[in-house]
């Protein structure tokens, strides 16, 4: 007797891995995987870039602090400033001498032509307040230098030092195309050239004036819109300022190209002379 066995075979459901839709799904999953990896790498890169930028910036800002600029001056050391003439000066006399007039005279010899009181003060402020100490220590170490003219490097003041480190406004030197004729050598000087040497400066001035006028204009609109009676005098001042700026901007662009005027005062004459020489 055979038992009739009915077996039901379990058919495993077939996964669809060959149709186009399935292949597209697989490709989409791999793309998602690649995107995820990319996010990881990008975040690591951003962090590294930030650390790098931070370190470079801090070092760049800090490195100029390790450098100092000196001005090499010919300092005339007259013996009568260090005690009665004829005798060699004592150490106490060297230490106690007043070095300010010595340095001032040395600066005036190096940069001639400074007359006005205010400009003389600016000139003496070129040197650091420690410049006198530098000179004093040099003389104390070598008293035989009294009476000679010493070529000594002296520490520049903060503002002058920062200027040389690039933290001030620079001086542009450009080769001129015409001949410059200054109207004098002191006081307010007008420099006339026979070619358009100053067109770029005029463009810069005009652009700056119009920008400033636009800024003030925005302020003016805001003040007008506030309708506050306390702002009325400010509004009138602003309107006058804007009108003046616009007039100056128009005037600076309107000169003829053959003779261009540029007003320069003494402190800028060095720039003018470098323009003349280059």
């Amino acid at each position, binding site marked *: 007797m055979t038992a009739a066995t009915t077996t039901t075979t379990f058919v495993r459901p077939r996964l669809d891995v060959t149709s186009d839709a399935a292949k597209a799904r697989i490709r989409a*999953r*791999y793309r*998602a*995987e690649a*995107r*995820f*990896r990319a*996010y*990881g*790498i*990008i*975040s*690591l890169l*951003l*962090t*590294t870039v*930030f*650390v790098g930028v*931070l370190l470079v*910036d*801090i070092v760049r*800002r800090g490195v100029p602090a390790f450098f100092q600029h000196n001005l090499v001056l010919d300092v005339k050391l007259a013996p009568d400033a260090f005690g009665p003439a004829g005798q060699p000066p004592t150490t106490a006399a060297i230490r106690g001498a007043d070095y300010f007039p010595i340095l001032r005279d040395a600066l005036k010899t190096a940069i001639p032509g400074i007359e006005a009181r205010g400009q003389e003060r600016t000139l003496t402020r070129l040197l650091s307040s420690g410049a006198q100490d530098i000179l004093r220590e040099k003389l104390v170490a070598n008293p035989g230098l009294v009476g000679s003219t010493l070529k000594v490097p002296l520490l520049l003041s903060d503002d002058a030092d920062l200027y040389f480190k690039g933290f001030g406004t620079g001086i542009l030197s450009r080769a001129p195309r015409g001949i410059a004729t200054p109207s004098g050598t002191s006081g307010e000087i007008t420099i006339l050239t026979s070619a358009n040497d100053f067109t770029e400066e005029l463009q810069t001035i005009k652009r700056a004036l119009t920008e400033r006028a636009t800024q003030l204009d925005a302020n003016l609109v805001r003040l007008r819109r506030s309708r506050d009676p306390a702002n009325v005098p400010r509004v009138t001042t602003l309107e006058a300022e804007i009108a003046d700026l616009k007039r100056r901007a128009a005037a600076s662009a309107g000169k003829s190209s053959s003779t261009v005027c540029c007003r320069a005062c003494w402190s800028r004459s060095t720039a003018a002379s470098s323009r003349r020489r280059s």
Partner: protein
Amino acid sequence: MTTHRVGGWTILAAGVGLAVLGVLFSLGSARPAFRARNTFERFVLIFLGACAVVAVLTTIGIVASVLYETLRFFFDPSLKGRPTVTEFLFGTEWNPQAAMRADQGDIKTAFGFLPLLTGTLLITFIAICVAGPLGLMSAIYLAEYASPRLRAWAKPVLEILAGIPTVVLGFFAALTVAPLIRGWGESIGLDVASESALAAGLVMGMMIIPFISSLSDDVINAVPQSMRDGAYALGATKSETIRQVILPAALPGIVSAFMLAISRAIGETMIVVMAAGLAANLTANPLEAVTTITVQIKTILVGDQEFDSAKTLAAFALGFVLFFVTLVLNIIALIIVRRYKEQYD
């Protein structure tokens, strides 16, 4: 000999005497029946217990001193110009300056805490928006995908970032990042303050990236390999495994990492002192200057006000609120970790 020198010699003699007594005692105790290891064990136990007690007592001391001054600030009747608790917690104007002289009628003293809270939360939110994705993705990449060579230079970079003093970061934020953001904003036409919350938030975000990254790295590595193997065996790609298996398993640790980073960001002082503003400003605009609780605490306490004025005691009230907020965040982190921690073995 002067009294000072006599005192010095006395102390020296007493110290030497005590040392000699101790040596004699221990040498006398060295007998075969003396159980030295047990005694030493007890001694080490007492010493470690004392260290833990010192830490706990210090915390209690800090909280108690701040709480005492805070209670004085709110409830001392002899203090002029103090606010009530609701005025402090829900006021919208922060102006502690005029509390010194009551005859300045046009300047109103106000101790409203809300602008400080919104400023702190704004900067913290920006910081987490920066640090969260960057830190988490760095951690995932370093834990799952990176080769040992890549890990060898990426980990030190993150550690350098963690070791940068916050003063230097604040310096960088104030001198470089803030003018840069201002320049970009103004070239687009937006009105950006020179001490925007965005600058402070960005740099603070970069500061807390190592926190999130290293803590998340640890929890992701702690997920057992068997879970990963099971997912790979089912045909999942690596990113699908991470997203659907590993991150949910590591979620409590990642959430607690975020909570710790948030409480660090809320309590951070130096970056915001240098890069964020001083005037309280109730706003949600990240391009404006806001001030935070820590900046105000520093501003009030760095100065020579006497400790009796309401203005100085306001700093203690701010400190207490700050402590309370970070305490709540840490407790939430602890609860989440404890409740959702998986036991794999």
